[in-house]
């Protein structure tokens, strides 16, 4: 037993030749977020507080697909979603379709704590945000030039497809690889456990590049992108549609509970066997203080630390 924390900045087709100017700021951000998460755990903050504060930090960083830096819908707008779950009580909160709320994860927590509901979306969620007095800002705050470029390239690639007069493919290759090689899919998330075995998880995202307006992904769906109970806490990232079908986050916990698999085995099974290759990654911690970070994509921005002193920050598979 002991505390443990893991966080991610998105899984996807992150090319091995990612230039330093794209790699270093993200690595630095992961390190910074890991440090503040670890410090909070050492100060006996609850795992629920820890995951919220780490995800807020990731949302504020424009290099990740959440909060500022969220990818754009097909209309060039931002629609953010987030979800938080307390493993001890299984209380949870989720939001979708946010356009002006600076920290979606904190609004999700307010839905959990201040309403009789679990999930609020779009206009209703924005109205709730105003009622609660959370920080809101102009919609343009979240939009970065990188994402404007990503959207442009995604649309150009789509146009090419249409020129070939092929129907919209149903198979998951909706992402287009951008010239600069950045992954199109991503999300941020954090899972934590204290030395009493209390677990919590939080996930936040802007969704898929060029997504249809109103599209909801796996992040705010309890059991898909986010889940925590007495066994483990999980935050997933990747192709939302695949993670929903495979109920990724719930299945990791279910395999531990019903088949007695270890955290590592359960995560490996779900990522290896249940979600198609190139679609999913996750970070998870167990009540016993174990941690695992697994993905079936080229890479996943990630970091973790445990009380016994182990820590890791990485992007591609560890050798």
């Amino acid at each position, binding site marked *: 037993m002991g505390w443990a924390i893991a966080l991610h900045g998105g899984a996807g087709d992150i090319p091995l030749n990612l230039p330093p100017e794209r790699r270093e700021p993200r690595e630095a951000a992961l390190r910074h977020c890991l440090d503040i998460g670890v410090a909070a755990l050492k100060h006996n903050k609850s795992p629920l507080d820890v995951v919220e504060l780490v995800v807020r930090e990731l949302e504020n960083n424009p290099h990740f697909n959440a909060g500022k830096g969220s990818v754009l819908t097909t209309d060039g707008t931002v629609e953010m979603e987030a979800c938080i779950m307390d493993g001890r009580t299984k209380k949870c909160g989720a939001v979708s379709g946010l356009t002006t709320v600076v920290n979606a994860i904190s609004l999700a927590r307010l839905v959990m704590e201040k309403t009789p509901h679990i999930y609020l979306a779009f206009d209703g969620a924005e109205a*709730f945000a105003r009622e609660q007095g959370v920080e809101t800002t102009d919609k343009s705050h979240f939009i970065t030039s990188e994402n404007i470029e990503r959207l442009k390239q995604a649309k150009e690639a789509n146009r090419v497809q249409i020129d070939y007069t092929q129907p919209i493919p149903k198979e998951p290759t909706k992402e287009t690889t951008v010239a600069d090689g950045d992954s199109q899919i991503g999300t941020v998330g954090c899972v934590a456990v204290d030395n009493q075995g209390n677990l919590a998880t939080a996930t936040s995202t802007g969704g898929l590049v060029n997504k249809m307006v109103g599209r909801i992904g796996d992040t705010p769906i309890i059991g898909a992108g986010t889940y925590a109970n007495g066994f483990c806490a999980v935050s997933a990232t990747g192709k939302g549609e695949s993670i929903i079908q495979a109920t990724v986050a719930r299945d990791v916990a*279910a395999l531990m509970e019903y088949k007695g698999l270890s955290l590592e085995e359960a995560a490996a099974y779900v990522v290896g066997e249940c979600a198609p290759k190139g679609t999913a990654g996750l970070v998870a911690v167990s009540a016993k203080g174990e941690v695992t970070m697994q993905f079936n994509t080229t890479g996943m921005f990630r970091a973790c630390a445990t009380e016994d002193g182990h820590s890791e920050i990485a992007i591609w598979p560890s050798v």
Partner: protein
Amino acid sequence: MGGWAIAIHGGAGVDPNLPVERQETAKQLLTRCLNIGISALRSSLPSIDVVELVVRELEADPFFNSGRGSALTTKGTVEMEASIMDGPGRRCGAVSGVSTVKSPVSLARLVMEKSPHSYLAFSGAEEFARQQGVETVDNEYFITEDNVGMLKLAKEANTILFDYRIPTHGLDTCSAAVDSPLVMNGLPISVYAPETVGCVVVDSKGRCAAATSTGGLMNKMMGRIGDSPLIGAGTYACDLCGVSCTGEGEAIIRGTLAREVAAVMEYKGLGLQQAVDYVVKERLDQGKAGLIAVSKDGEVAFGYNCVGMFRGCATEDGFMEVGIWE
């Protein structure tokens, strides 16, 4: 074993004082919809088509809380949601915040089959509906007198009791006549209101499918999403089974109820009825809910931990039953 099977529901958590005529109307409606499903199965329609067509029928009738007859938001409007899942391949589609689409379950199916996504909501869902040319009507079409009355009642109770900004310790001195104030998610929520419709089917090829549709909670906050459109919570189907849930949405979400039935079958090797019983007993904590399920082997099962669930089921060997209480 084997052969087709179908189950439908019109909501769990029934007012124990429901007048007999209303009970009869409910049973007739359930019987009619069940028969529509049975005919479709006898014509060899695949399960995904059958669940959609049966839920469309339930949505069109104002008796239950879906489509026409949906519960009202706190503003007196209707915001509908639905989801559908096809066991083979676990394809899925869902919609939320639908306000003009006559059949939300059919829109959910179109999301599954004609969009690159699994879930569309609010203005994006409405826009998609227009692009697809589905039948749309004014929001007023869905609103019934019954529900306007229920909303009024819920609001009267709410302003004294159930407003979540007001602490609960005023409950015992309140003068509003509420027989059994409901507590949901730790907070008092609403008076009795019907709750969701759903259908699960396994066809003679052993393919399972599930669909659920609802107007949500009476007097819900604008933008509130419940369990019905959430894959794994209100709806789930895979190779082994098809499940549709109803009841306290928040409890169903926390318990990932629909996925849970399939997970205990898959990972614990439980049979269908055992899985349903286990999940209802162990996975609901304080929550009140019910569910219907079919297995690839042609079995049908249901379970609930509240007072009644409107339901019906039938299997290929001629078994057929419609009920409300135990």
